[in-house]
């Protein structure tokens, strides 16, 4: 929570917002909700009306917003706000940059990527972007570089969507945007690698972040898709590949014959991933030793 002076300043802002919201809701209710005559065959007197409870809520919100405003102004919130507006301080930008570095990936993931990109790929992208940005942030200057790289990529992504490019590209080849996203991910990871490759400790951290992101993605998405039978929000290239295997006639027959077969297949899949990860770690350790 913020300290008291800042808190009261923001209380003035939020109080005004809540008063405004309460007034808007009240007007909306009084003008659009049935308060008399009939609706749906039911007599809409005031005490039966669907407007009753919302009206009480919006009225209370105006009242409490007003009380909050009075208290905030009394404790110097308005003065602080005016002072802040007069001399807008730029010193807060470091904190704001860090905040944006967390929230922009979340918003891009939910609003831009998930509706258009294969769930496996966009989840991997989300995890890897955040992990590399924050897990390796002790490396001098890396955080700002990665965040800037990501912001530029997201801005380009947004502009492409605004101009309808993904739909046009996907009309040519259905999984074009999946490939574009993969390319961006490789570029991002490659850019990070170029910065930290001279430091053994950070190379190890980089490797660990990649492993956790890939393994996490390969555990979560298949469990929901194939064990819990939840269709993924967008099923693209990678899901197509998994479906080729899972719905292959031999695998389907195996699952039909053995009720617990799907768990055995999943277990086998995770054993393969674990073995691959183990071999990669061993090879990396051997390389470290030879250096």
């Amino acid at each position, binding site marked *: *929570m*913020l300290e008291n002076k800042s*808190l009261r300043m*923001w*209380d003035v802002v*939020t109080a005004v917002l*809540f008063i405004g919201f309460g007034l808007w*809701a009240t007007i*909306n209710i009084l003008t659009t*909700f*049935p308060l008399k005559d009939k*609706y*749906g065959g*039911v007599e809409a007197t*005031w*005490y*039966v*009306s*669907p407007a*009753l*409870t*919302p009206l009480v*809520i919006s009225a209370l*919100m105006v009242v*409490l*917003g007003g*009380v*909050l405003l009075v*208290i905030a102004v009394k404790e110097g919130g308005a003065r602080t706000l005016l002072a802040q507006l007069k001399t807008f301080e730029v010193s807060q930008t470091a904190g704001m940059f*860090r*905040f944006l570095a*967390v*929230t922009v990936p*979340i*918003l891009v*993931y*939910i*609003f831009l990527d*998930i509706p258009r990109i294969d*769930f496996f790929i966009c989840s991997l992208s989300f*995890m890897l972007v*955040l*992990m590399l940005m*924050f*897990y390796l*942030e002790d490396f001098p200057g890396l955080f700002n570089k990665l965040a800037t790289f990501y912001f530029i990529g997201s801005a380009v992504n947004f502009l492409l969507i605004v101009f309808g490019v993904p739909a046009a590209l996907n009309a040519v080849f259905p999984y074009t945007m999946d490939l574009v996203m993969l390319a961006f991910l490789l570029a991002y990871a490659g850019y990070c690698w170029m910065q930290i490759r001279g430091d053994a400790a950070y190379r190890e951290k980089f490797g660990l*972040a990649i492993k*956790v*992101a890939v393994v*996490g*993605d390969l555990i*979560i*998405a298949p469990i*929901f898709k194939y064990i*819990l*039978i*939840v*269709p*993924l*929000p967008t099923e693209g290239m990678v899901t197509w590949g998994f479906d080729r295997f899972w719905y292959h006639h031999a695998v389907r027959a195996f699952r039909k014959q053995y009720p617990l077969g799907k768990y055995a297949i999943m277990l086998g899949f995770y054993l393969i991933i674990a073995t691959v990860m183990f071999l990669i770690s061993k090879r990396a350790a051997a390389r470290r030793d030879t250096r």
Partner: protein
Amino acid sequence: MKKSQILFVAALLCVALGGALPVLAQADAAPASSSGGVFGMVLGRFGQFFYYIYALMIVPQNLILLVVSTVVGITFGALPGLTATLGIALLTSLTYGLNQDTAMIALMGIYVGAVYGGSYSSVLINIPGTPAAAATALDGHPLARKGEAGRALGLTTTASFIGTVFGMVVMVSVSPLIIKLALQFTSFEFFLLAFFGVLITGTLLVPDLVYKSWIAGLIGLFIAMIGRDPLQAFPRFCFGFSELEGRIDIVPVLLGAFGIPQIIAGLKDPDDRAKRGEFFTFQRVLPEWNVVLKYIPTILRSSLIGVGIGAIPGVGEDVAAWTAYGVAKKSSKHPEEFGKGAYEGVIASETANNSCIGGALIPLLTLGIPGSPPAAMLLGAMMIHNLKPGPMLEFESPGFLLKMTAILFLCALTMWISGMLLAKQVVKLLKVPPQLFLPVVGVLCLIGSYALANQRFNLYLMGIIGIITYFLGELGYPMAPVVIGLILGLMVDENLRRAMMVSNGSFLPIFQRPVAFIFFVMIIVLVFTQLPFYQPLKAALTAKFKKTA
């Protein structure tokens, strides 16, 4: 305890007593059953209880899920940034395809495990894994510094087990009484009870000003109004979006409110747990029965505090733990030892936060009003599994209360065994940096929101709610009233309008029905005592009274 808490508990006792006496008198007037009256009935209930334990345990799926969910719960609790509420919310979508009993075992396992698991990081790295374990850190971590980490964890494990069992006993004893009472409630009582629940959550959880907590409750109530109203199907605040007409799902809102802000805060300002590894090693976790037996009065007192606070809507395990810790310190013969590694401090907080689970289930199962944020999530999960918590629960699902008691007991036992055997392995997870697991949690939140209804709209909702609640949290608006308001909003709306329909727009029945009147008075008193002029007025009246005396 705060005065408003005492008032509420006193009111509940009066209501319970006022309602229970005629009910008990009726029971006395009934002819004794052929199986031996009250004693026979109690024996029968015990028999049924053990039967349910047996019936649940012979299903291998139940046994596996019990162990897995309890361990996952302990892990969730141990990792700072993850809460019991988030764990239950994430698991809800995973349990969708399971039958009722198995789903309840999984959800209760994660609930009990998570509340206990917070003590791991509290003791070992002085960072509470969950808010419920914050008080444990005060004496648990100094014990670890003295080289008694294993002993401290043994104390927390045993105290948590005792607290959970105590809460379970109170839950099964008190709930039938409350159900009998609640069956006599009309719409007026339910409306006032639900409104009181939102109000008291806002009053007791005040990080800053109480008006902000009340506004948070109003926000939750408003969100609950969105969609077609239950009585006339009029679309309220839908603005042409068909996705909003079916009302807003609880799970995406809870995942957004509890998951996204944690991810933002955990990445933006990560803790330095990786640098606090010196106390991760300990010999073994010891069951400290002899120490526990020495502090039986503290255990009983803390358990009662935990159950009482758990029964208050929306107020959670953290308040119970702090209150019990404070009371234990005040009543201790050696209060100066608190904060330096006092066993009593650890026992008090851990017993209370776990007995709070049973307390939170009392209003949840009997009235449909969640007693804590994790219980609120449990309510959402129960509704998804076609269970309607409230006075009719025992009629629609006979034996459910006793079954939940059995499940709670099994979860407590599994928690104790897991704590004793697996502490060292779970503790290794504390070394995992938040920057690596929080993004994974983000993906889980997302797919969990989507899985419920296969709607992308729920994802957008989760994202928006998450960002807004992060800002609200930073500005001193607590989330618990929002959640309770969302869950109780429909109860408030339906019952108010139904009550008005029956009384033709008159509020007179509030003053004619004793229970409704008590709730009404409680609401007035609660609001009045929070107004700014109350304290000066009280001081002036007290001074005047003292003068005349």
